[in-house]
């Protein structure tokens, strides 16, 4: 490793605990909610020079929430297992009165007038929001280097990226600054940074968590989900987050119940049927990441799971289909940013309407966002729609069909989360195609709308953490997290960061 590691709980006295452990400490009065919130804010600020995980610290919101939660708890009302636990939220999730920039200059200074449903639900569960997390601009990127607020850094090696686009979330959790965080995942943006930072991240089934208030990137693919130290914390967070929301027409009446997940041990793996797509292990995969994933497969088999390879030919079509669909939806979703009504504008006397819009967008969007907006608008243009967008939708339908038939034989599909470990800063920005191929394991899951959890499975040859993902049937979020908890009950990879003192 060339950079320094900041792992090991160096930022605060509560860094060593998981979210559920902190929740239990709050309930048993070992620590007060305000004290915990203050400590988390201090740790977040202390860490930011090293890892730049935060864009905004929400001290006022945090301290008033903390006081309100403490008085609820004092009156005997415990809203959830996570009551009193600090949380940080990716900066594309709207929080009333708190700057929400999507790490873009075009939203510089934008403060939402309303809360995202997940922000309301986290508050309802008694958690305390300490700030907004760094990310790739509008969630477009795999390194958190496209942020207008500077790159976030990987706590294991600050010369490396934390992954992306929820890189700030993964970095803050890995560094012990935030016990858990909310990310969003359009093509792997929760799972890949979780893998790169050695933490656990869950991308829920599409429709399981409301998107109301999530600044849209690819609407048919976006899902909000938790990043945490382990799968148990992810399950507790999912209990707070899930449930139908009438404000999101794509949300479903699915209620996640963490009780079966939290009880799971290695026995939960017995008889579980795991499928391994052959194509996922053929080319383009770092050999040491590959052998870590295969070790995990062997362990699952040793613990009584059945493991079987199967062909998955649509696998290689997922990345191109994804980049057409996601870019097309992004081009549409981001066309509202004109700099006139909110955010950083270019409206000044003497400009025509078109000139003002062109200038605001030219100055406000970064290179990667512009690349995808152009790609997306091209794909939707008259004369090209059928050749690109419609073709991509057909690929998506075929891909879903292959998953459907695989899930008749298997309970869970297992793949590496990413083909490599975390890249060095600056390494991938000039080669977008290589960067897009890094999403090869994660994007098929979004196209199919399935739940998937990424969990640490060891350290690669470069000393960096590697991750694998468990993919489940639609709305079997409980199933994948239960398997993840079972795996983590007999492995220690997810705990490595806590013990390695700086």
């Amino acid at each position, binding site marked *: 490793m060339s950079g320094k590691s900041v792992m090991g709980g160096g930022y605060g006295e509560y860094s060593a605990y998981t979210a559920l452990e902190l929740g239990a400490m709050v309930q048993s009065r070992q620590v007060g909610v305000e004290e915990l919130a203050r400590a988390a804010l201090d740790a977040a600020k202390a860490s930011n020079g090293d890892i730049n995980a935060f864009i905004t610290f929400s001290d006022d919101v945090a301290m008033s929430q903390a006081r309100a939660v403490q008085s609820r708890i004092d009156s005997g009302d415990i809203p959830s297992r996570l009551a009193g636990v600090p949380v940080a939220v990716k900066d594309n999730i709207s929080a009333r009165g708190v700057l929400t920039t999507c790490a873009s200059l075009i939203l510089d200074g934008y403060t939402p007038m*309303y809360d995202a449903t997940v922000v309301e639900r986290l508050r309802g569960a008694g958690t305390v929001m300490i700030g907004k997390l760094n990310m790739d601009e509008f969630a477009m990127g795999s390194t958190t280097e496209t942020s207008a607020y500077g790159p976030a850094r990987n706590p294991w090696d600050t010369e490396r990226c934390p992954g992306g686009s929820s890189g700030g979330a993964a970095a803050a959790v890995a560094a012990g600054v935030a016990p858990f965080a909310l990310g969003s995942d359009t093509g792997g943006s929760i799972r890949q940074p979780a893998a790169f930072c050695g933490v656990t991240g869950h991308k829920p089934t599409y429709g399981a968590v409301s998107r109301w208030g999530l600044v849209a990137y690819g609407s048919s693919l976006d899902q909000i989900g938790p990043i945490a130290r382990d799968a148990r914390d992810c399950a507790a967070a999912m209990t707070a987050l899930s449930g139908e929301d009438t404000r999101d027409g794509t949300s479903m009446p699915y209620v996640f119940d963490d009780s079966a997940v939290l009880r799971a041990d290695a026995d939960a793996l017995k008889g579980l049927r795991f499928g391994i797509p052959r194509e996922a292990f053929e080319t383009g995969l770092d050999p040491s990441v590959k052998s870590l994933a295969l070790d995990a497969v062997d362990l699952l088999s040793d613990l009584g799971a059945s493991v079987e390879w199967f062909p998955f030919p649509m696998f290689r079509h997922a990345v191109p289909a994804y980049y057409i669909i996601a870019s097309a939806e992004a081009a549409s979703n981001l066309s509202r940013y004109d700099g006139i009504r*909110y955010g950083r504008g270019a409206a000044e006397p003497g400009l025509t309407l*078109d000139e003002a819009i062109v200038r605001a967008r030219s100055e406000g969007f970064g290179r990667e966002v512009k690349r995808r907006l152009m790609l997306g608008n091209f794909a*939707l243009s008259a004369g090209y729609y059928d050749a690109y967008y419609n073709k991509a939708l057909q690929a998506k339908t075929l891909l879903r069909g292959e998953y459907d038939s695989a899930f008749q034989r298997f309970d869970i599909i297992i793949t590496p989360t990413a083909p490599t470990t975390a890249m060095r800063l600056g390494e991938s920005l000039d080669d977008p195609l290589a960067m897009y191929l890094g999403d090869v394991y994660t994007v098929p899951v979004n196209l199919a709308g399935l739940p998937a959890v990424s969990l640490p499975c060891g350290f690669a040859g470069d000393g960096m953490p590697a991750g694998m993902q468990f993919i489940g049937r639609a709305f079997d979020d409980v199933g994948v997290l239960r398997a993840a908890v079972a795996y983590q009950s007999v492995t220690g990879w997810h705990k490595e960061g806590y013990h390695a003192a700086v």
Partner: protein
Amino acid sequence: MPLYETVVGLEIHVELATASKVFCGCSTAFGGGQNTRACPVCMGLPGALPALNRQAVEYAVRAGLALNCSITKNAVFDRKHYFYPDLPKAFQISQLYLPLCVDGWVEVSGKRIRIREIHMEEDAGKLSHDPWTDVSLVDFNRCGAPLIEIVTQPDIRSAEEAVEAVRKIRAALSMLGVSDCKMQEGSLRVDVNLSVRPMGSDELGTRAEMKNINSLRSIGRAVTAETARQIEQIELGKPIIQQTRRWDDSKGASSAMRSKEDALDYRYFPEPDLAPLSLSDEWIAERRAALPELPEQKRKRYPVEFGLSAYDTDILVSEKALCELFERTAALCGRPKDAANWIMGEVLAALKDRGEPPDQLRLPPEALARIITLQSDGVVNRNGARRALTAVMSGEAEDVDGYVTANQLAMVGDESALAGIVRQVMESDADSVAAYRAGKEKAFGRLMGQAMKALRGKGDPGRLKELLTEALGEG
């Protein structure tokens, strides 16, 4: 025989009368302080999502069924993109690929004008420009109001047919109650697509689209003027340019807004935030069964059942308020022809005097029925009945009988009282009596008038005439 034929297709935007907007819970009421009926959805704020108003879908389906359309059970919403400050998301949620209703028709002067589709969409906001400060302001209150767009095939051949098609569609929608169809307030807006071609040709000419037409009358004027303009172009050997034109009703002429070269690529694609609809056959059948009797059906029934003329029928069925008043009044008083005559005459005249449209009519059918009954029973004469009607319509009176009593409108039918008046008049106007007896029949009317005046208009005219004739004969 004319040398050219006009070919017209219509695009009719109708605002649905739902209480809330099509993708959020904001009110659709007209007016209200600027930007007071706007939420994150209306304003297209980052992270806001549309949630479909099922009532709007139901209204659109009812409109489709009433206009003989097939309903697309798995209709899909699409995004239509363009940059304009009254469109805060920079796309309008509309329907391109799978519109809700397709393949309908409306009958106009015995022929069918085909309706290609009816699709749902959302309205945009409203811009106002302040020339003093050179600033444009946006009001998002109208943003997200539910609209349907009814698109006809180019089956219309004249200004009269165009006006008639809009009248028929408007009557059907207003009968359904799915829209208030007010052209002046913009809840019904018509774009006219028009081309001309040599008579007998089967090919369509290059068309122009006219916007900003806001009354039935201006639809006809616009068709006539544009037909003349295009024929003139052709005769002068100039090409017709495919363009959008703005109709100026005060000038009676249109002017070019933009041509096809400026046409936008709307980059339509399916709206990912809204699941495709999934309407069951049962649900559609229930909506069809629940449709009210439509104007076309009433048009056939009234002449047969009530003996009304085609003209009266046409006026009554064009307005929901009028035919409801007619049907209930006729049922209550049992005199449908009187009911029709009263509505066509006194009621419409009173509305005109008051400058009110028919849908603001404040006349309970019970009151009109009672007035008709009182007159036909000879309790009041026509003058008294008219006074009672005016009083009810102005809100001055609620109870017809009470008003008649309080204002002593009941006719004087008492023999001795009438005979006394006849005597009085004959004594005071001996000249007329003499004239009549000398054969000048005109003088009879003069004497009748004086008698009626003396009775303050309340004399039973039939009996009075008999008594006067009798008394004059005795001399």
